[in-house]
């Protein structure tokens, strides 16, 4: 009996040794692999196309190097989570990855991103990048950690047919919040069944609520979310209350969607796929990428959207300078801080971001160009009739204060809008709740009353 036990043990031990021997060897000097992580969805394949092309070109030019593409199928939020989880451990961290501009700062804090300054010096194309866009890849220490792929702006997208039917002069150019309300009321009076002017609210649409609705209001009052110079969060501003009050008016007068629809996370699909194409909605605030949904191969193909839709800058509260307001996000390519092949990884990044690759990516995904040569290319400017208008908004656009506390603050803003449009709190109360929430999140010492 004892002998059998010993035999079993030795068998198990032998199996363990044998299995351990199966683990892959350390890749030799002549054989290198670059891991590239990025987002790919049914409606977002432009980046995949771009990286596939870069992979072929790069592997041909660098013998013995394999580029391992790792597409992650997920929406923006889940992609961010999966990427962060992969970055946590050096053994799973990709060498090159697709990174949201508003995560750059906190990921630099976490030590996930490689500082690129020394590499960028030797890359002549870097000078063709727009200065505003370059700032998106810069961290608190002044170093650059990410190279922008493209950016976006936000504007009012309106259905010309609906506005025409209501007797609004086209092109529509609202100069103040009052203009928006007047036009919305006019549309409602003409046909009570259409949704005159939608702006997102509540936690359902998440970051969309703040980027495509609340911040256009807030930054148009002259107030802001964050005092960059002092490094403090703004509380108790009149602009914050005014912005909430404007949303309340829109929802109370049923000029926007119903509160129940607003809180549905899928409401934007109806805006793009149903209400605007079927002329059931007058206007909405959306990103410059809106045409990517309607063009050939988009998720909600709409032949003729070029004629039916119009675009207008979102006005400031009372038309004060600069007259319009927009918000920008955008994505970058970055290198993992622990990459074993920084030179090679950077070289792949430059291949991926060359002029021709950038151009086709920017056009296919309806982005706003960040390379000056791409921005001047006729292929870009004529991609759809709205490119010039939305690109011009870069001059008034704002970026989110993307600190590590930002995701929580953003949710506090979303909660304030939700409380107001559902009628559970008045704008004043909701603003006070927000102030308390901010003090709770960052500590009272990091807030400033303005």
């Amino acid at each position, binding site marked *: 009996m004892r002998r059998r036990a010993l035999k079993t043990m030795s068998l198990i031990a032998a199996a363990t040794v044998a299995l351990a021997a199966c683990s892959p060897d350390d890749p030799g000097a002549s054989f290198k692999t670059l891991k590239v992580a990025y987002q790919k969805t049914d409606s977002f394949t432009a980046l995949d196309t771009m990286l596939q092309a870069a992979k072929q070109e790069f592997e041909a030019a660098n013998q013995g190097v394999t580029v391992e593409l790792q597409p992650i199928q997920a929406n923006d939020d889940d992609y961010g989570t999966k990427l*962060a989880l992969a970055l946590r451990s050096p053994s799973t961290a990709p060498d090159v990855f697709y990174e949201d501009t508003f995560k750059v700062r906190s990921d630099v804090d976490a030590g996930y991103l490689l500082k690129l300054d020394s590499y960028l010096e030797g890359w002549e194309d870097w000078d063709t990048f727009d200065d505003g866009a370059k700032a998106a890849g810069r961290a608190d220490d002044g170093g650059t950690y990410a190279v922008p792929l493209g950016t976006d702006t936000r504007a009012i997208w309106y259905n010309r047919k609906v506005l025409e039917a209501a007797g609004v002069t086209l092109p529509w150019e609202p100069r103040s919040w009052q203009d928006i309300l007047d036009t919305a009321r006019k549309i409602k009076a003409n046909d009570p069944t259409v949704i005159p002017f939608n702006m997102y609210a509540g936690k359902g649409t998440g970051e969309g609520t703040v980027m495509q609705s609340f911040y256009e209001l807030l930054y148009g009052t002259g107030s802001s979310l964050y005092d960059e110079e002092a490094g403090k969060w703004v509380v108790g501003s009149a602009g914050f209350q005014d912005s909430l009050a404007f949303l309340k008016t829109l929802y109370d007068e049923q000029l926007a969607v119903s509160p129940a629809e607003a*809180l549905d996370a899928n409401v934007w699909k109806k805006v793009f796929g149903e209400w605007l194409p079927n002329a059931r909605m007058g206007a909405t605030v959306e990103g410059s990428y809106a045409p990517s949904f309607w063009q050939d191969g988009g998720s909600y193909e709409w032949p003729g959207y070029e004629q039916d839709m119009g675009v207008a800058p979102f006005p400031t509260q009372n038309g004060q300078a600069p007259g319009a307001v927009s918000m920008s996000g955008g994505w970058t390519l970055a290198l993992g801080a622990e990459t074993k092949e920084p030179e090679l990884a950077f070289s792949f990044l430059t291949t991926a971001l060359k002029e021709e690759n950038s151009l086709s990516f920017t056009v296919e995904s309806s982005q706003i160009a960040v390379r000056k040569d791409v921005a001047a290319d006729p292929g870009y400017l004529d991609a759809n009739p709205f490119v010039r208008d939305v690109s011009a908004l870069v001059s008034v656009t704002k970026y989110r204060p993307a600190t590590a506390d930002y995701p929580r603050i953003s949710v506090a803003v979303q909660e304030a809008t*939700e409380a107001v449009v559902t009628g*559970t709190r008045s704008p004043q109360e909701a603003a006070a709740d927000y102030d308390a929430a901010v003090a709770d999140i960052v500590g009272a010492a990091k807030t400033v009353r303005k």
Partner: protein
Amino acid sequence: MRFPATARQLLRYLPVLPAVLLLLVFLAGPVLWAFHASLTDAGLTGRSARNPSWVGLENYQRLLTDPVFPLSVLLTVVFVAGSAVLGQNLLGLALAVLMRRARPLVSAVVGTTVVAAWVLPEIVAAFAAYAYFSGDGTLNQLLGGLGLGRQDWLYAFPMVAVMLANVWRGTAFSMLVYRAALNEVPAEVTEAAQMDGAHGWQRFAFITLPMIRWSITTNLMLITLQTLAVFTLVWVMTAGGPANASTTLPVLAYQEAFKFGDIGYGTAVASVLILIGAAFGLAYVRLLREPRP
């Protein structure tokens, strides 16, 4: 050659050793890791991502002052009690009892219908439930067809909607357990009770129920723990909203850990969930241990 008694005793456990090791690595490991992380300020990104520091019970203190946490515990209890202990359990028992009486055809049709919801992958079931309850969903179209008013179920009654969805999805399990249990009740005993003059209802309450009480307890334990952990259904249908009105503990833990990147706080919520599950588990195990009457 003979072994000392203790060594022989130990040797007997050898075959279960791999199973125990697997359990330790894949079950106890993550639980311990979660508990450890809940005592740190580990984050998904930001300064504390790579080098989390020890914060002791700070996360748990924060739980006590967080207004969402007590609400979330209450919602979890309501969800488990309403949709598992009452909904799935009683409906499953009722179906099992009725199916014994029904004609084979009726019984087969009902059984298949109920089990169909159960065999769906959770994500598919969740989308089906979302499509059913949403604003333009099937339920509202049915109500509209009957000339009744429409309701925004996921907005006005989010908990009712997710509880009904969970009952729909989970009843099959209880039904199957009870059908098996009822088949084990010897016909002679029931007949003997009938001879003694017990009516249908009395036979059920005093003969059948006591004889299947072990199945009842086991079933309750399984569905309670399953329902405590339900995440996908709630996340897809309401994502915890509106205004946290359906944020059960798993949803809260997910939001904190992954949406806000605060893994320390998220795992603290998860640890509380584990403790609640453990409390339920212990209570049921005690019930099972009680001597037979």
